[in-house]
């Protein structure tokens, strides 16, 4: 850039130049007029007059000059920056080991943090992708007696809340059912969201094709219409662009497709299609519509603009209190029904939040360790470059210029490392997405978008600047000693070595915390795996048979189908037992806690009724699953149609409700004495809802008592159970061609899935911890190696004076282990506090489990010793002659 010799910078310089330029003009003009014959005074007056508004001209010139100066400063800044960057790139290329080690470390740290951030951003930070996402409230009716978070609302209650609440724009109900959709080649079993006509308006969702429901389309007289989910439209109908207006037959009625939804996270369930409540035969049946206690739907509300969750909570509580007073029969004290409201957005991410925050903290720790490591590498390099820096300072580079060079260098490293980190994050994202899908439907929204890129860039830049400031802060003020022959002995070197030691100790303490966390998760997982499930999961196939209850209306119809299926399936080769139940163990699902009364033990007023989780099992259920018979008997084929239906209770129920007494022979009622059942046996407890869930008091009723049409079939085989799934499909198809078979799984797989969440959480934290350990060990080895190389002469003298190799090795090892020990002590203290945050993830392990702490500490010392051993061995091989001559 060419500069004028008279470069004016700064506000005062500019003002002076403008003044001088304008004064020169007036002077010349006056001179011109004088030459024409005017007097000096007249000439000057005229010169000023023809000039015009001097003040305005001056101001305008100053503004222009100001712009110009700023532009020039910018150009110059960019110019030096570019110079720095090119210079830095050259120096980094000359130090490939340092550069590669730093880049890899930073890529891991930034990549891990970015990946977790993208998950957190998609799931927790972004507003829901519905237009009114931030105003949606989920209203729940918990049954506190059974510990059930939401029993749902009856349609009657929905109407009451709609008419009596004040803080909502609108409320909408929702439930989901499976129906059979006819109209394509094969009958399709579709999960159907059944909603009020205003449901999509409450959410603020517009159709992608066609429209959503109009007011009145949920009234009994309305023509049957359905809306398709985007996924179903794509998957089952090939994304047919002319789908709107086509018809399907469901529940013996012809339904017209009126629209397709955009791609959205669906919650609470993933539905294939949506229909208005008027189309659901169950929802409009007389015993549901007329009953206040037919609680079956989820209630969502959209807050009025400006209304708060607190107001909404107070509002629904008022209505609930009124209803409880008005209809005491529908709100029995024994059930202890409550009311609750939560932001929908928090509700659907509740499960994911704690895990994601723990993972974010873990990733941030890894990044911290990575930073400490790169800072350490940088310091080592600075120590070697002390002379170069001093020379540059002497040659006129200002202290700030050198600091800037250092910051440029580390920022360049961090930004390139961050770019590599994006690749790491990209690789991790697939795993994280499927992992997050275990907790929340919002997992589909996770992706690497502009926000994530901006985050990665910000983290990289910040990292770079902090890293660059570390050596800049400790950089020398005293130039002369830097230039002296022996920079090794400088006091600055000592300060920097202490800083490097501190960084290693910090890394060790953080890595220790991570490893302890991972260790606790591992122990917890092993405990989960060791839990005796109470049944034998090997060689069992399960499948769901959700019978079309429009066709199978009565108990006998259902039983005829199931019995035929069991008989024919049992006859297949390789099958040793077949049973049906309402739920197989290890299935997702909620306990079906029913309040009951024991004959001869009347309930006192106000006393909470005991509850039993009611499970259905056919005759062979216990034998098939290998559930232990503790006493009495299980069901027999001859039990059918007796007056006092036989039932079996589990050990937990026997202990809790009978204590030392024998429950066999006891009579129970679930409907206040209208029907009675008799306990005939006690069976062992099973992990019905997953190994971490404590077994609840349960009752097994024979299949003959059941009227539920949503059944599971269990098939025990001699060999691999997956082989009989073809037989199962064929037999079901033969019995009823319109009946789908879904959720075909082996029980072993279900048992694996039940611990999938803790397993993957453990693996992720474990992977992060291992990365942290490797980085720390590498950092430690680097520091020790560097010290050894700096102390070559000292070690040479020691050896020359007769020090034994063992002694030298011990000296080096002691130095390394001292740093590790300091880190371990700090890390252990911090871990004692931090691991408590993990408590909710731990199963039968204390957050301060001493075995884990000691084990990890031992592992750490071992790895640290290994890391020190390589440089220590090099130290023992120092040749005193060479060392003394060269150093």
């Amino acid at each position, binding site marked *: 850039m060419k500069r004028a*010799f008279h470069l004016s910078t700064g506000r005062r310089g500019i003002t002076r130049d403008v003044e001088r*330029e304008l004064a*020169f003009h007036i002077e010349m003009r006056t*001179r011109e007029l004088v030459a024409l014959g005017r007097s000096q005074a007249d000439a000057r007056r005229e010169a000023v007059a023809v000039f015009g*508004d001097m003040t305005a*001209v001056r101001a*305008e010139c100053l503004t222009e000059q100001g712009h110009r100066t700023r532009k020039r400063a910018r150009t110059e800044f960019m110019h030096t920056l570019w110079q720095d960057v090119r210079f830095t790139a050259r120096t980094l290329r000359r130090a490939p080991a340092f550069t590669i080690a730093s880049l890899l470390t930073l890529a891991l740290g930034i990549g891990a943090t970015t990946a977790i951030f993208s998950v957190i951003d998609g799931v927790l930070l972004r507003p829901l992708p519905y237009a009114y996402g931030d105003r949606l409230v989920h209203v729940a009716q918990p049954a506190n007696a059974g510990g059930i978070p939401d029993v749902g609302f009856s349609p009657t209650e929905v109407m009451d809340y709609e008419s009596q609440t004040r803080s909502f724009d609108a409320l909408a109900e929702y439930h989901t059912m499976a129906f059979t959709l006819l109209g394509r080649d094969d009958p399709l079993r579709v999960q159907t969201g059944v909603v009020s006509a205003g449901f999509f308006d409450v959410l603020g969702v517009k159709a992608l094709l066609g429209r959503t429901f109009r007011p009145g389309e949920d009234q009994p007289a309305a023509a049957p219409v359905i809306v398709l989910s985007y996924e179903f439209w794509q998957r089952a109908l090939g994304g047919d662009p002319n789908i709107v207006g086509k018809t399907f037959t469901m529940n013996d009625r012809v339904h017209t497709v009126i629209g397709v939804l955009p791609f959205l996270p669906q919650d609470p369930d993933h539905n294939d299609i949506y229909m208005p409540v008027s189309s659901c035969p169950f929802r409009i049946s007389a015993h549901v519509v007329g009953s206040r206690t037919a609680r079956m739907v989820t209630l969502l509300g959209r807050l009025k603009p400006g209304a708060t969750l607190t107001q909404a909570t107070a509002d629904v509580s008022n209505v609930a209190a009124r209803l409880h007073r008005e209809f005491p029969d529908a709100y029995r004290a024994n059930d202890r029904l409550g009311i609750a409201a939560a932001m929908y957005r928090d509700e659907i991410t509740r499960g994911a939040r704690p895990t994601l925050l723990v993972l974010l903290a873990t990733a941030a720790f890894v990044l911290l360790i990575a930073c400490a490591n790169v800072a350490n590498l940088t310091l080592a390099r600075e120590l070697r470059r002390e002379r170069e820096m001093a020379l540059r300072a002497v040659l006129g580079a200002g202290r700030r210029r050198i600091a800037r060079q250092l910051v440029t260098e580390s920022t360049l490293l961090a930004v390139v490392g961050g770019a590599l980190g994006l690749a790491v994050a990209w690789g991790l994202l697939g795993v994280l997405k499927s992992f997050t899908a275990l907790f929340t439907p919002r997992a589909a929204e996770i992706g690497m978008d502009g926000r994530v890129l901006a985050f990665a860039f910000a983290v990289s830049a910040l990292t770079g600047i902090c890293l660059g400031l570390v050596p800049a802060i400790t950089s020398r003020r005293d130039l002369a000693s830097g230039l002296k022959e022996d920079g090794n002995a400088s006091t600055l070197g000592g300060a920097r070595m202490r800083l490097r030691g501190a960084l290693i100790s910090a890394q060790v303490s953080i890595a220790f915390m991570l490893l302890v966390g991972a260790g606790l998760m591992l122990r917890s997982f092993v405990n989960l795996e060791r839990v005796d499930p109470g049944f034998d999961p090997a060689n069992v196939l399960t499948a769901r048979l959700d019978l079309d209850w429009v066709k199978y209306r009565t108990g006998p119809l259902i039983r005829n189908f199931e019995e035929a299926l069991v008989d024919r399936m049992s006859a297949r080769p390789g099958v040793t037992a077949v049973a049906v139940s309402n739920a197989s163990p290890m299935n997702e699902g909620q306990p079906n806690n029913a309040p009951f009364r024991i004959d001869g033990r009347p309930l006192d007023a106000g006393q909470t009724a005991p509850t039993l989780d009611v499970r259905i099992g056919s005759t062979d259920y216990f034998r098939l699953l290998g559930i232990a018979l503790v006493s009495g008997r299980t069901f027999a084929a001859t039990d059918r149609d007796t007056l006092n239906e036989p039932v079996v209770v589990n050990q937990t129920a026997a202990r809790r409700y009978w204590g030392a007494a024998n429950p066999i022979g006891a009579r129970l009622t679930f409907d206040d004495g209208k029907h009675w059942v008799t306990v005939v046996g006690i069976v062992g407890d099973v992990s019905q809802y997953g190994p971490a869930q404590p077994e609840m008091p349960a009752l097994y009723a024979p299949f003959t008592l059941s009227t539920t049409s949503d059944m599971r079939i269990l098939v025990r085989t001699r060999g691999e159970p997956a082989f009989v799934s073809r037989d199962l499909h064929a037999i079901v198809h033969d019995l009823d061609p319109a009946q789908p078979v879904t959720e075909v799984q082996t029980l072993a797989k279900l048992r694996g899935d039940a611990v999938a969440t803790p397993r993957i959480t453990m693996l992720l934290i474990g992977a992060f911890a291992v990365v942290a350990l490797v980085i720390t060990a590498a950092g430690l080895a680097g520091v020790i190696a560097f010290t050894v190389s700096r102390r070559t002469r000292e070690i040479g003298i020691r050896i020359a004076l007769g020090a034994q190799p063992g002694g030298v090795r011990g000296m080096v090892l002691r130095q390394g282990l001292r740093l590790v020990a300091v880190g371990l002590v700090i890390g252990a203290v911090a871990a004692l506090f931090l691991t408590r945050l993990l408590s909710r993830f731990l199963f039968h392990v204390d957050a301060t489990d001493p075995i884990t702490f000691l084990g990890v500490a031992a592992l750490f010392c071992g790895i640290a010793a290994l890391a020190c051993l390589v440089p220590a061995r090099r130290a023992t091989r120092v040749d005193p002659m060479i060392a003394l001559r060269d150093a």
Partner: protein
Amino acid sequence: MAGSDLYTGTLDVLILKALTWGPMHGYGVGKWIRDTTREALQVQEGALYPALHRLERRGLLEDEWGVSETGREAKYYKLTSAGRKQLQAEVLRWTRYTLAVSAALNASPA
């Protein structure tokens, strides 16, 4: 405050043209414009300076302090290569414009 008789941008072109004779200070540029246009274009002399500074910021001019013919220190402006190109483009535009307007004004009824 630019002279109302000047078409927009005309002053800029005149400044660029003036400087084709070599580096000149602001007063010289103003005098050249006054002399060559025989003072037909009424312009307040002060309006020249903001225009000079604006052209400078746009990179069309460069400045340099030097000693004037009267022995005083003065700010000299000179054309940059960008300024030269700009002038060529403006001259072309101006010629086309005047030709078109003259053709229209000279046209006789058909």
